[in-house]
Each structure stands twice: as structure tokens, then as C-alpha cells.
């Protein structure tokens, strides 16, 4: 066995693809070859380094928000279960009727479109659904929709549930930020800062606020420049302003 073959076998051994006989040959080679032994030790040390890396912790805010969501979901299911049972019984009875009448009705009945498409939420729905829809819209980068749902959630919000309230406010602030509505984003971040349960990683939050502030101030500078009479603008400023306006239009 040469060293190239040995290196290939080492990798196969680490990925548990090596047969016992080949393994024996590999270790025989390793006993004789210091260079391969050193290479093998490098592979082992990579694995050791990675497996010894400590796990990271999420922010307590996230955990709290998730646990509160679990509590709400359990309550919702407990309420829904008796209604669901009676609905199933009614469903069985009506199924027989439907089957009898199906042939008669077929061809004469046009199904009405639902007023709301699947997945939409109304204010009468439980707040957790509103929050879920809001977050879902945010995840799908539909920030306008996210703002709509989350504002609904916060106006009808769950009482005594600061963690979920905080989650909704944070997602709302980020939605505004992603849309470039920095003034509203800053106001929403400000609400977060005064929130009783400030569990989110403060450093991360400060970065987001600073980023927002910077964009907001940029915009103020731009609008100030636009307010100047044309002859007071220098030529050097024009390309930058055009670039900035274009950038904003795209984002």
C-alpha cells in the first residue's frame, strides 16, 4: 500500500465505509509510515475539535415565546376537542344524507368560492393564528402582509402574555426595517426597549436599531438635499443621489 491509497482508506475509515480487512492493512501501513500517521492524526484532531465545540444558547426570549405558544396551543386544543367530537358525529350523520343526494345535486350545484382564501386570518380568529400568519408572512418576505397581521395581533393581543407580545413586536419592527420604513421601525424598536420582558439579545437588537438609524438618517440627508434649490447642488452630489434613489427604489 502506498501513501495515496492509505490516505483514501483513512477517509473511508472515518466515514465507516472501510471493510475490516482493508482496515487491518491501513493500520499496518500507519505503524510503518510516520507521514501517514501524522495525516491520520490531523483527521482525528479535526473531528475532536469539532465535537468538543460547546453548544450555543438561544436567547431566553425565544424560549419563553415558544413555551407561551405551546401553552396557548394546548389551551386551544382543549377547547376545540369537545366541539370536534360533536362535529364528527354530525359529520357522520350528514355524510349519509350527502351520499344519497349527491347524484341528484351533481351538475346543478356550483360551489361557491370561500370569502377568504385558505390560510388567511380574520380578527375573530384566535390571536395565536394571527401571530402565526404574521410570522409566516414575514418568513416568506411578504412584509406588508406581516405588518397587517401582526398589527392585528397586537391590537387584539393575548393579555398577560409579554413573551408573545414581544415576539410579535420584534417581528413587526423587522418587517418595517426590511421594507425600508425606518421611521416606523425605529418607533417599534423603541417599544421593544420599553417592553417589560426585554429578553432578546440586547447586542443584536442594538445592531438592528443602529442599522435602521443609519438608513433613516441617510434618507433625511437625501430629502434635505432634494429640498435645496437646483443651483445650490454640486455636480459631485448628483450621481450619489441618483444612485441612492435607485437603490431605495429597488429595496
Amino acid at each position, binding site marked *: 500500500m*502506498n*501513501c495515496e491509497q492509505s490516505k483514501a482508506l483513512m*477517509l*473511508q475509515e*472515518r*466515514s*465507516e*465505509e472501510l471493510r475490516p480487512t482493508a482496515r487491518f492493512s491501513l493500520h499496518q*501501513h500507519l505503524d*510503518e*509510515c*510516520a*507521514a*501517514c*500517521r*501524522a*495525516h*491520520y*492524526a*490531523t*483527521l*482525528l*484532531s*479535526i*473531528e475532536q*475539535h*469539532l*465535537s*468538543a*465545540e460547546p*453548544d*450555543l*444558547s*438561544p*436567547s431566553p426570549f*425565544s*424560549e419563553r*415565546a*415558544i*413555551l407561551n*405558544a*405551546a*401553552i396557548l*396551543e*394546548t389551551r386551544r*386544543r*382543549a377547547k376545540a376537542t369537545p366541539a370536534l367530537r360533536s362535529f364528527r358525529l354530525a359529520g357522520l350523520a350528514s355524510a349519509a344524507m350527502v351520499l344519497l343526494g349527491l347524484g341528484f345535486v351533481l351538475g346543478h350545484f356550483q360551489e361557491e368560492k370561500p370569502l377568504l382564501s385558505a390560510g388567511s386570518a380574520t380578527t375573530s380568529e384566535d390571536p395565536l393564528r394571527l401571530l*402565526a400568519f404574521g*410570522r409566516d408572512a414575514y*418568513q*416568506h*418576505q411578504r412584509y406588508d402582509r406581516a405588518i397587517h397581521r401582526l398589527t392585528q395581533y397586537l391590537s387584539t393581543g393575548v393579555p398577560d402574555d409579554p413573551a408573545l407580545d414581544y*415576539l410579535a413586536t420584534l417581528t413587526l419592527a423587522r418587517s418595517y426595517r426590511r421594507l425600508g420604513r425606518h421611521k416606523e421601525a425605529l418607533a417599534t424598536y423603541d417599544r421593544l426597549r420599553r417592553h417589560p420582558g426585554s429578553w432578546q*439579545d440586547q447586542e*443584536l437588537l442594538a445592531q*438592528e436599531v443602529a442599522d435602521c438609524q443609519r438608513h433613516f438618517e441617510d434618507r433625511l440627508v437625501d430629502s434635505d438635499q432634494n429640498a435645496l434649490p437646483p443651483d445650490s447642488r454640486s455636480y459631485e452630489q448628483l450621481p450619489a443621489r441618483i444612485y441612492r434613489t435607485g437603490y431605495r427604489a429597488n429595496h
Partner: protein
Amino acid sequence: MLSDQTSYTDEELMELYIAGEVEAFAELMRRYRRRIYSFLRTMVGNDRETAEELFQETFLRLVRVKRFGSYLRSAKFSTYLYTIARNVCIDHFRRRRGVFERSLDDETVVPLPARGSLGDDPERLLLEQEQRDLVSSLVTGLPAEQREVVYLRLRSDMPFKEIARVTGTGENTAKSRYRYAIESLSRQLTAKDVPCKGDLSTADPGGQP
């Protein structure tokens, strides 16, 4: 109210949560929060904000699970949860096309250790920490398919069979992805001339047969 939560298996806890026991869910969170968060941090290239959002999304999906179904009769809860986390990641990458892969040119800034945290032999410990940080930063440069296999194998101690289930591939594919990943890491470490434990400079040049 659960008497001793630690005596339950993950699968039992999940069944209890579906039956309406919130404390069972809290115990599952305690068991998996760090592992899942670290997995997500690895997958999104150490982006804290995104990892935090994906972490929330993963567990909120778990909150909404209504039935455990046939999946867990043949697989472990950890496999199930990592599969959710992975799907959340894939959804995220699909939404933000182009950020899935991370270039190796994007050097990760490695934070210095805190003063007084290095013990009796600061030089050796510092070197070890530097090596560990370097290896971690190289992992973020691997293709996502290799990164997840490396994480699941080394950080979660998952057998390749389970990794294959999480990643929705065959066992042999999982193994070969792991092999490519380790090969790539060792090649990069050697190229960077890092004095790892298996540094070639310590080898006997005459030892080659």
C-alpha cells in the same frame, strides 16, 4: 403535572405534550434548545439573527404538531426534530436565494478568549482555541450538504443511518458527504499550514515505505 420529567423518553414527552401536558414540551425544549440552535447557527454561517428566527420557527412548528403519526414508530424524536430544523433551513435558503453557500474567502472573525480564561498554560490553550476556531470557521465554508452531515455526526453523535433519515438521503450518500467534508477540511488546514496535532512537520520523512 409530570412527576419526574427526566425519566421520560423524548418520544413519551412528545406524546404527553400532544395529550395536553405543556410541561412535557418544556422538558423537550430544555433537552434540545442548545443543540438545535447550534445546528442552525452552523447552517446559516453563524448569523445570530437568522439562527434565532429559524430556531423560533422550528419549535413553533413543533408546537403545532397534532399527531405524532407513524414517523416516530420507526425513528427517534431527535431525528424528527432535526428534520424539522433542516426543513426550516431549506425554506429559508429558498426564500433568500444566493446566500445558501458561503464563500471560503469570507473569513470569519475569530473572537479572542476572555482574559484569565486560559488556565495554567495560556500559550498552548490559546493555540488549541485558535485551531478549534479555525476548524469551525472552515466548516462554515463547506457546502451546506456537507456542513449538516459534519454537524450531525460530530456534534450530535448521530449514526449515519439517522443522518440519512434527517437529510432524506441514503446512508452511503451521508457517508460520502462526510468523507468529502473531512477531506476538504484537512486539505485546507494543510494549505493554511496550521500546526495541528497531526502536523506533517513532526513526521519522520524517512518513514514512508
